[in-house]
């Protein structure tokens, strides 16, 4: 059928924007307030988040511009054209590994949070294995089904966040956020590093753009996705600091959860909002995990010329091993930091170089043709 034939992969601009946002909103909401509070040490952390959002948009702009030069092809395919077969393949493989590590990290964070707030006696391994079992069913369905799932779930996730933010205003005290810029602009800059790390995820556009039915709307999509995430992050950081104070946010492991603990829903039907929040947040973790898992498997598939489903299965043990690797929470967060650094290098710096290289190459081609 004309419009119903979805055997050909094609996703809309709205879906692309939602996927961008969903790839970023995952673990960040849970850990960002603490890492910000630790490095900023003043209540101005939310400003750092806003600034980082703008920086992320710049990176996103580069990423999309690069992808638009190679319509219908993913980063894994065109990187070989820009820097040659071997270096390109290495960079592609690096990006796959990045996704595998991200998925492993996310899996472990999810497991830890569920164990902490929902199932204190169940082994974390069981929690993670069942999660992966459901995820593989989604990943192997391909990008269209994933896009639909995210289209369905993102509104729910935003709704949860809105409820969370609205109800935590009871404990919110504006004084905790004051003074604004009390110690000048320097602390805000210190907060940019940890917050830019939690914006990693927008780089899914490196392969999503290739599947878009209207790739010229990719810029708008990535800006919408990053903008939404930036607003949510800023609000969450502000709410966490506003209701817990900077000092407390620095000391608790899961500050967002601590805020949720204080929430009482009207009518008193549900106590322990944090458990409810965790349950619903599993949806968010799931969609992000599936995106990473798909990104990694797709990359391996395109690099080797085989079906990505094969690598979706093969990468599961690897993801699981990465997830159980850190022996405690501190090591887990260290791993998260390293993944963030890697993403900064891979998606902040390399795309800029690629874009310049590609432009130079094209200019050379044009020259040759002119001669």
């Amino acid at each position, binding site marked *: *059928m*004309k*419009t*119903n*034939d*979805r055997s050909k992969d094609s996703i*809309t601009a*709205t*879906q692309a924007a939602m996927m961008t946002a969903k790839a970023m909103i995952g673990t960040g909401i849970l850990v960002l307030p603490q890492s910000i509070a630790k490095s900023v040490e003043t209540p101005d952390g939310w400003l750092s988040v806003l600034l980082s959002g703008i920086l992320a948009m710049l990176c996103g702009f580069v990423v999309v511009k690069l992808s638009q030069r190679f319509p219908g092809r993913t980063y894994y395919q065109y990187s070989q054209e820009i820097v040659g077969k071997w270096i390109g393949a290495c960079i592609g493989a690096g990006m796959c590994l990045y996704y595998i590590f991200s998925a492993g990290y996310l899996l472990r964070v999810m497991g830890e949070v*569920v164990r902490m707030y*929902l*199932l204190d006696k*169940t082994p974390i391994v*069981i*929690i993670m294995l*069942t*999660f992966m079992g*459901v995820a593989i*069913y*989604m990943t192997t*369905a391909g990008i269209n*089904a994933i*896009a*639909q*799932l995210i*289209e*369905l*779930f993102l509104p729910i996730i935003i709704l949860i966040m809105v409820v969370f933010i609205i109800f935590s205003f009871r404990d919110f005290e504006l004084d905790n956020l004051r003074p604004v810029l009390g110690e000048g602009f320097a602390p805000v800059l210190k907060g940019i590093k940890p917050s830019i790390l939690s914006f990693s995820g927008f780089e899914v556009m490196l392969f999503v753009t290739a599947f878009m039915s209207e790739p010229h709307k990719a810029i708008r999509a990535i800006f919408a996705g990053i903008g939404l995430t930036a607003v949510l992050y800023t609000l969450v950081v502000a709410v966490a600091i506003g209701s817990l104070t900077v000092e407390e946010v620095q000391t608790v492991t899961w500050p967002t959860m601590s805020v949720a603990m204080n929430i009482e829903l009207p009518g*008193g*039907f*549900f*106590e*322990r909002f944090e*458990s*409810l929040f965790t*349950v*619903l947040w*599993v*949806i968010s973790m*799931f969609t992000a995990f599936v995106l990473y898992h798909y990104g990694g498997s797709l990359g391996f598939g395109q690099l080797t010329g085989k079906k990505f489903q094969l690598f979706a299965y093969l990468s599961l043990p690897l993801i699981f091993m990465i997830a159980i690797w850190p022996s405690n929470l501190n090591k887990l967060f260290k791993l998260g930091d390293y993944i963030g650094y890697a993403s900064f290098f891979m998606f902040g710096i390399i795309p800029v170089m690629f874009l310049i290289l590609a432009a130079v190459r094209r200019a050379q081609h044009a020259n040759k043709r002119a001669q």
Partner: protein
Amino acid sequence: MMDDTQLSKELHHNVEEIRKQIGHSPDVVIRSFCMGDLAFQAALIYIDGLVDKLMIHEQVLKPLMHLAKNAAEYDRRTAAAEAIISAGEVKEQNQLAVCVMEVLSGNTVLLIDGTHTAIVIDTHGWERRSIEEPVSEAVVRGPRDGFTETLRSNTAMLRRRIKDPSFTMEMYKIGRRSQTDVAVLYIKGLTNEALVEETRSRLKQIDIDEVLESGYIEQLVEDNRMSPFPQVQNTERPDRVAGALMEGRVAILIDGTPIVLIVPVTFAMMMSSPEDYYERWLPSSLIRLLRYGAAFIALFLPSLYIALISYNHGLIPTKLAISIAAGREGVPFPSIVEALIMEITLEILREAGLRLPKPIGQAVGIVGGLVIGQAAVQAAIVSPIMVIVVALTAISSFAFPQYGAGLAIRILRFGMMMAAAVLGLYGVILFYILITVHMTRLKSFGVPYLSPFVPAHPSQWKDLFLRFPLHMLKRRPAMVSPQDDKRQK
């Protein structure tokens, strides 16, 4: 396949051949006679019970025996016969196997000595049930007629509703032995051609001995056989079929069953009743919302109970938790066993009530429900809260306008309960994600099962959770890509 042996000129030879193929069953009637004073030997062959005997006598046999006088004017003997027979539908045929098939499907075959050609007279006339109110899909407001087992009267019911010349009907015979009549209905110029073609090709791929009910066809054309969800809609309401045809869908009618199939189907269709469009928009919208709420309860309530009782009782408000604990005092089983006992009892009651004759069935339902529930609580096998949970779940699962969708939810409820028993609330949410993932993967005749939720067609959400006023529903559903999508100006 059929052999294409031609009829011979010899009458007795033809009769013998047909006898050989049909056999000597007592219901096969072969009436030999002489055509008037022409002295042609002739024979009528039909099956007793499938034909209208009065019609054969009055319109075929009588004229042939008494009026065949000036037949010599005709150059062919069959032409003479055709001129004499006053029955409405008559055609010539000269293949033996086809003649046999015509006899088997209720027509009468006239063989005349000295010609290669037989005359097939349409004399269908078997006992049929009269049109009654549909049993499985009752409405308060709306037409009361339901389909019957006869294909022709079913198509007539639809014709009466759609007097559109482009209303098209394609006939197929499916079932190597049963040779069941199957009709594919659509509206030319409105329904997407690709959808019709897809339906045709899926029907043609069927190779099976017999088709006893539309369920055979349904199971053989569906996209995913492992899915708990029905991927073809079935209904016994002509108004529902007419509505679906007008939306640009395709209907499949099967002879011998009052259940008609509609493709493609989406989850949202399962949650709507024709009555939604007959009542005014405000009550209809609220009732639809209520149905989605009932679906939620039917799917989640027992598993939420299990998860909250055995893992996450902290989530229940303290006062309620105390009263639940008091109710559970003395109950020796964990909540999953308690829930399974009650749920399975209820399923048995439901099945038993369905199979028994109506008056007894109702008694079983009431006796079972009241007595077992009350006795089980007093014997401290289950807690009173559990009885409430099970009762609410059961009532909610009756609120589906489609039996098939209710079945899917019933199956999934047990899966959900198991997940809740093993992993608590985490299990519930994971199972919910699993169902959603499955539904995003699922398609019915190429149309995503969850449309128009996703892929999102916000313009189509006017007829989803809410049913907007009719004058705002100007377009047909985009998911079936109708050729003509304007419903009203």
